[in-house]
């Protein structure tokens, strides 16, 4: 399902705008990450996309069609996990999924199998008859996501789905979302944990203070913003028995060349240094020559590609400045 947002805006009090002037296109079958700090307008945008909230201004089109009032047919094609984790605490996971399956009008013949499938997929089989109130936070989150996928939606909207999930749960969620995309489902996802989205998303929209800062293909965005950031990883052999400079000397020399050492470590018998050298690649060439001249035994020097987190931080700095 292709999503088009045009000049979308929402205000709750008529004075401050949670989101305003949002223009965004999400191609069909893509995974689009919505990132931004708290209060940026992500949840509001997702609620409007899920048709549970009306925009104050602007419009949303689903496959080119504007939603009608009380558009149940459209909602049948959408799976929405909002914030706040609303669950019926006295219902068991099986009862909860069955209830929502009926609310989404899944035929009786398919409902039982769909519920079982979700319980297995989200590793809730052992807890199928336990009250939802007794489940751990991670299990509840898995149950909520299972509810959104139960009716096989064409558009999946997840607001902070990784919240409360342990590392394995997050890994499973990524796998599930990849499978969901392979079925042709469009996925819109918001998260604070940018590393979760880095490899997963192919589209990205960064929101700040109710405005869209940047949007587009993830690769393009990273490409666009990494020219201003030069991070290199150096692998250095330790000093010989006879002595000689090691990583400490390397660190001093990098600082002399206006470098910022971000991380250090030890890997495969080599010391590693990750440093940011601003001002272009010639600066790094100078620094590398100085290291070699000082007797530092540099094995490799490779440029580290920017990640989503770096882009986001860079954009946040720009915003603050």
């Amino acid at each position, binding site marked *: 399902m292709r999503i088009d947002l045009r000049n979308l805006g929402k205000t709750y009090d*008529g*004075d401050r705008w949670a989101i305003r002037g949002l223009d965004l296109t999400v191609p069909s079958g893509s995974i689009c990450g919505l990132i931004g700090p708290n209060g940026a307008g992500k949840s509001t945008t997702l609620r409007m996309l899920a048709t549970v909230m009306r925009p104050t201004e602007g419009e949303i089109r689903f496959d080119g069609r504007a939603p009608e009032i009380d558009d149940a047919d459209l909602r049948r094609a959408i799976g929405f996990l909002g914030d706040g984790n609303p669950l019926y605490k006295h219902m068991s996971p099986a009862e909860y999924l069955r209830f929502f399956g009926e609310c989404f009008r899944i035929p009786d013949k398919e409902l039982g199998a769909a519920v079982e499938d979700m319980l297995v997929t989200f590793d809730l089989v052992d807890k199928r008859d336990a009250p939802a109130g007794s489940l751990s936070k991670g299990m509840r989150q898995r149950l909520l996501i299972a509810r959104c996928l139960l009716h096989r939606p064409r558009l999946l909207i997840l607001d902070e789905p990784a919240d409360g999930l342990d590392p394995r749960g997050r890994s499973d969620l990524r796998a599930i979302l990849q499978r969901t995309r392979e079925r042709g489902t469009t996925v819109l996802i918001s998260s604070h944990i940018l590393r979760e989205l880095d490899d997963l998303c192919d589209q990205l929209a960064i929101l700040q203070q109710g405005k869209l800062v940047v949007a587009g293909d993830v690769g393009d965005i990273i490409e666009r913003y990494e020219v201003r950031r030069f991070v290199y990883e150096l692998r250095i052999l330790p000093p010989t028995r006879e002595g000689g400079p090691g990583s400490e000397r390397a660190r001093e020399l990098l600082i002399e060349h206006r470098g910022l050492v971000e991380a250090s470590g030890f890997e495969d018998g080599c010391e590693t240094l990750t440093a940011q050298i601003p001002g272009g690649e010639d600066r790094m060439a100078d620094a590398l020559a100085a290291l070699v001249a000082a007797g530092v035994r540099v094995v490799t020097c490779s440029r580290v590609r920017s990640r989503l987190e770096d882009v986001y931080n860079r954009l946040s700095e720009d915003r603050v400045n």
Partner: protein
Amino acid sequence: MSRPLSIRSAARPFVARALRGPRGRRLFGLSVLLAALSAVLGTWLTLGTGEFERELRVALELEQSRYRQEEAGFMLIADSAEEAAQLRREVAKRFAGGETGYDEVAFRVNNALDAAETRLVRAAHGDAPRTHRKLQQEARLAYEAWSKYPLLTTGLHGLPDYNWYDADEVAILQVVVDRGMSPRIEEYASPLPPSDALKLTGVLAGGALLLLLLLAAPVLAGTQMAQETHENTLQPLAGSALRAHELAIGLTAGPLAVVGVLAAPQLLLMLAAAAAVGHLGAALAFVAVVLAGGAFLVMLGQLAGLALGKVRSPGLVGGGLAAILGVLGGVGVALAAELSERTAGTLALLPQAAASHSLAQAFGLGEASRGFGASLDTTAPVVIGAAGMLTFAFLGLRALARRVGNTSLVSLRRGEALVGAIVAMVLVTTANPPHPWRAEEFYLLNLGLLTIPLAILLMMRAPTGDVPPALRRTPVAALVGEFVGWAGLYLLLAGMLLTEGSMWLLWNPVALLYAGWFLGVAALLALRVAVAPMTFASRAWAGVCAAMLAVAFGHMIMWARPGEELLWRDAHVFGFTALSPLLGLVQALLTVAVPWTLLRALRRPASVAPAAGE
């Protein structure tokens, strides 16, 4: 999908949720237990000999009081075989000329013998009608045989003459004479036949139905809706494939399923009992009344839960609903028990009263006297009331669907609100029909009563949907006009029911001005409460506005009088002037300030807000 199928499929998940697993089994068990309890209690209350069940039978006029039974049968009723033996011994002692004892048994025997002796003395004196002369002679002989002295003919010494024309009294005298002053001693047993156990079981089952549908169902539905709102669980439901009206039906069906499981056996018991020993037609009318009243109250409870659930805990909402409906239920039952021709119309307004009345009619309670309005024809108010409640329930469902589905800025459309207003007018007019010579007690009192439902309808006409308060454009003039139009329509209808020239309101400009002020401010206050956020100060000011409404209503009534009466009463335009000129000035200032402040609060910036349409 066809409408019935759509309703069924919408209700199904919610009903299944309400009756799921062990919860459903427990509910079914409880239902059977309650039905058994009704049957056991009915039998116990019919045939039991304890004081509690006896008092209850007397209260329900199924049995005469012990005093009346003892007097009518010239007997003494004992609670046990031992007490009966004591009474027999005491009577025998008295007949043997023994001394009177000082215990309770002796006291009771003395009282019975003294009353019988007085009765004989009174009957023996004076002239009896020809038909009773033989009985009079026998009374005289009985007295002489008892007292061992001839009857003095000097007079009654302050005792009233015997009433030979009271058939009950004569029957008692006959028993005293027949038994030769010796009271019958009986061990107490319920005077009701075993078949009456079915009747009382039916009454109890009907009472349980009344409680379940008119109290438990609205409280449960309102609490559940408040919980859904409070815990934000409505959001995933609103995002499901259920349309707004299906969601409203589903949310209603859940709590009703719980109540339905408990009510079904009671309904069967009640109908079976009515078919066997009561009036099936009246029992069916009772069912129709509780269903219609229940539907209305359930909708009211849900709308209250929806409105208050965000700001108040579900427990508090449920407690409040239970308290209000409990009081209304008590008032309804009391009203039905003391129903008179003048109050019969109120059955249209209070479903609890109409249901109690119909239940009493179904099982012939209160037939001995006028209790429960047994001798009154109440078909019209009961039918009108039930139809009105059903209409309100339908409108409530429409409003609920718009609120939970967020499909419209207003809860009711203009035509729907007009229908609601007309129904309210009909109900109020039925409850308080035109009085032949006190017109103001009809149209002015009803206008005051009508203001409450009309204000609620106006609040549902105000745009309060998913638009921030600061951006709401409230069409104040149009909505106030609508409200005044409803009131005008009522006055027009009232005028058609009254004799010409009896509506003094229309002929006095001051009364008319007060009526206009009262209606205008009532509308503004309703809109203010509905559309704009309330702070502590604004709540306090709303209280002042409401007090001024009451003052204006009083002034309207005072001025809607014939001219000569106003001269005689020395009426003031601002009535508080009569108490103090300063108070009069304050009243005049408030008369201006109240509408001005309300209008000011309703004026909001309308820069980018969508028009408050439907």
